[in-house]
């Protein structure tokens, strides 16, 4: 059965991208293999683990459940786009302080989800954080440290210059 090829023009972490993608390539594979942005992790490839979470046009989404061709015309942020070249962001600092990661496989998805949530609602309470993070699976930490880290990181999102 044939596939089709398409031009996709979008922005990743503020940089313009103009590439040809195959119809069946997921956005997660496109980011990792074509654009070499391997910060986005792929766990289950069918929407249940949340490791592949990225932000498209301001909304957190699963990049394994999006086709690369569907990214055409959008603005994308990956985990590479919410880190500094040197030093840690307040969100990363909070994750480190609370031991919110062990193996780190789920971490890009956790960070992207937390970043989207805190950008939307820096006043979110613990229940709200738990509700949102329920879409991300972590097999190491037991979640409590992640929730503590996100609770602490809220402060940084209340001041726009730190976001």
């Amino acid at each position: 059965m044939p596939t089709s090829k398409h031009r996709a023009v979008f922005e990743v972490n503020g940089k313009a991208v103009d590439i040809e993608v195959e119809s069946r390539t997921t956005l997660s594979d496109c980011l990792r293999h074509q654009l070499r942005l391997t910060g986005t992790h792929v766990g289950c490839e069918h929407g249940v683990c949340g490791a592949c979470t990225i932000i498209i046009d301001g909304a957190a989404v699963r990049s394994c459940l999006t086709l690369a061709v569907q990214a055409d015309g959008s603005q994308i942020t990956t985990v590479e786009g919410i880190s500094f070249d040197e030093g840690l962001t307040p969100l990363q600092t909070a994750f480190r302080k609370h031991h919110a990661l062990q193996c780190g496989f789920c971490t890009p998805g956790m960070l992207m989800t937390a970043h989207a949530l805190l950008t939307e609602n820096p006043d979110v309470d613990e229940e709200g954080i738990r509700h949102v993070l329920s879409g991300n699976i972590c097999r190491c930490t037991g979640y409590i440290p992640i929730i503590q880290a996100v609770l602490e990181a809220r402060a940084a999102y209340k001041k726009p210059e730190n976001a």
Partner: protein
Amino acid sequence: MKLPPFEYACPATLDEAIALLASRDGDAKAISGGQSLMPILAFRLASPSLLVDLKKLKGLDQIKIDASGITLGAKVSWRQIEDDKRLATAHPLLQEMISHVAHYQIRNRGTVGGSIAHADPAAEMPGFSVTCDAKIVVKGSSGERIIPAGEFFEGPLMTVLEADELITEIRLPPWPAARRWGMLEFARRRGDFAMGGVAVFYDLDAQGRAVDAHVGVIGAGSIPHRVPGAEAAINGTTVDETAILAAAKAAAAGVEPLTDIHASAAYRRNLISVLLERALRAAVAR
């Protein structure tokens, strides 16, 4: 798994989309939010030769509320329903049901039309549409059809939709402000598909007796459906404890749940009964 091969098209109009779907003898599929179709493709449970993206179709992403009721465009997302402040009074049951659908990232993309077309028997939106007497508006090569939700679902992942038909909107009757309602479901983790769920509503007549009771269940059989026995046990009563227990009993008798890896049929039957009992108490207290 990686997705099977398919071609992709992103038409700009509904008519073009329908023509593309009609061009492949049933082998083309629409993609809206992709939150059910992409997993199906990844599992290779389907391998359509063409995906027709609904992304560019205009006018299908509005929530309209007026005296004639509520109209949800097929591309309205879970997130839009969650964020629409008007719905807290215009249709509180809709917002409550949708609050149980999937997780944050999925809610940003998943759509009401996609959910109804997907027809998972445990999904909230198909169940909601049946419980609330929704009308499903579809358009295909041979024109428009308006299908009552109660006649739309044929089995798990099976509907009366033709291969070249698209859902365009879902129409809901108006929701009286004084209506009593309750909705409960049980899932091991919030956002997962329900092991069972119940929605109930009724109005009160001048004597304080329940009229026009609607009881709908999800995850309790091969399609979402209403439970006439439980509705009859509520109608004409003041919804006292006797009526609540009678309705709960009738609900257990009125469902044909399946046994699967998540729960046995007996467990689900009992679950539905308990959920209706609690949902009715919530309705009375509301």
